């Protein structure tokens, strides 16, 4: 018995060590293969990613409850004085907005009559819906959020995510029929958007820097950007319409132009997803190598 055990140990112990060493090598190799395959089959892995998010959705919803409660308590703690000041500011803003609304209604009527006169057709049908932010990207240098929307909304890649401040990003992963989508935010290093400087009328590419900041790249020679200039979508890519407000120029350092998003990317409770009905969809998730 003892001899048998020794014979067994003589084989089993080195075998176990060898298996342990080989398994580490196999796991490392699997990870590398997975990275390469995931890059080649981005669509399949995009579906897999959304399926994983869907699977943990109830847990995330439950985990989000204490955060929402804390946020609600914080809001309630605001003093009456602060609320009165905000109220006053909001009344002034409302009066201002009413004037603009009246002007918008007048221009809309004029626009319609001119379109009718020219027999011009509306190029695209615009649809939109609002959803709450469920989860945040927390483990890499990227910046994206998962949004939960009404299930009947027709989701696809390349939809524009907006807040009252302007555009904040685009959908890159969607799970149609479930109402879940991942929005790649403007400051993600993989985000590249064709833009135009509103005053300078110069076109370039708005690139995320991963730290809440943005940079305008590929401006033509002789461009004269101005600090404070608004950056809007250029509409060159056929995916985004032109004129959506994105960011504001904050610093010019030689040929480097820095900007910050107009919308607060770190305070996204709700997002509006807009389908401008432009070109069908992005061919692949837009975080692929340019």
């Amino acid at each position, binding site marked *: 018995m003892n001899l048998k055990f020794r014979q067994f140990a003589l084989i089993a112990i080195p075998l176990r060590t060898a298996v*342990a060493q080989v*398994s*580490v090598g196999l*796991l*490392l190799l*699997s*990870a*590398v*293969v*997975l*990275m390469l395959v*995931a*890059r080649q089959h981005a669509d399949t*892995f995009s579906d*897999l*990613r959304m399926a*994983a*998010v869907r699977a*943990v959705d109830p*847990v*995330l919803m439950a*985990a*989000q409850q204490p*955060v929402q409660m804390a*946020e609600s308590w914080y809001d309630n703690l605001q003093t009456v004085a602060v609320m009165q000041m905000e109220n006053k500011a909001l009344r002034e803003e409302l009066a201002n907005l009413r004037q603009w609304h009246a002007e918008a209604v007048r221009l809309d009527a004029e626009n319609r009559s001119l379109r009718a006169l020219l027999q011009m057709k509306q190029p695209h049908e615009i649809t939109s819906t609002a959803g709450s*932010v*469920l*989860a*945040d*990207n*927390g*483990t*890499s*240098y*990227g*910046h*994206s*959020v*998962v949004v939960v929307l009404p299930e009947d909304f027709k989701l696809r890649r390349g939809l524009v995510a907006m807040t009252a401040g302007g555009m904040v990003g685009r959908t890159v*992963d969607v799970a149609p029929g479930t109402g879940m989508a*991942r929005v790649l935010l403007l*400051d993600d*290093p*993989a985000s590249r958007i064709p833009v135009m400087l509103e005053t300078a009328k110069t076109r370039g590419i708005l*690139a*995320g*820097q*991963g*730290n*809440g900041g943005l940079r305008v790249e590929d401006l033509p020679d002789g461009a004269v950007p101005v600090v404070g200039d608004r950056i809007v979508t250029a509409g060159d890519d056929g995916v985004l319409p032109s004129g959506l407000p994105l960011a504001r120029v904050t610093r010019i350092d030689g040929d480097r132009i820095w900007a910050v998003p107009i919308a607060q990317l*770190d*305070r*996204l*409770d709700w997002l509006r997803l807009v389908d401008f009905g432009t070109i069908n969809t992005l061919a692949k*998730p837009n*975080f*692929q*190598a*340019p």
Partner: protein
Amino acid sequence: MSIVRYRPKSTAWWQVLGDAGFWLMPIASITAALLLSLIYIPGMPPLVIHWPALVMIYWACYRPEWQPTGLVFIFALLCDLLSGTPLIGITALIAVFMTTILRSQNNLFLALPFWMDWIIVSICIFVWRGFEALAQGLFIGTWPHAAMWFTSAFVSALAFPLVAIILSPLRRAAFRF
């Protein structure tokens, strides 16, 4: 001479858990860390603490036998899928690599004072974040700012004692019987 009957000492719930669920503790703690990193907190600056990495490193340093490398691989892959990182598999690669090195130095970590462990773990976190940045630069073509790499690694390294305080009772649970 009377016979004194053996009476087992009363045990706390985590002590029972420590005896029964060697694998359960890393699984539960990494899952919790993963969820913590995914919860959206409005107003938080984009300084992300790499909670799953800290927990994996902790178990690799102090209780490697409870956290097999396969488990690290699965959780790191799950981390990649849920976090939306563009390179699926990168966390798995780094996690398996780092934990394999750290688990081989288990005796050293147990012998050294905690502040020295903390320094070594901090270096590991910087290397971990460095690998992530390197992979992103090479595969995606966008290099994260050095300041961002430093800040995210530094904040994560600062959070390690907190992880150690939380997980330490669980790690010691098995010795208390």
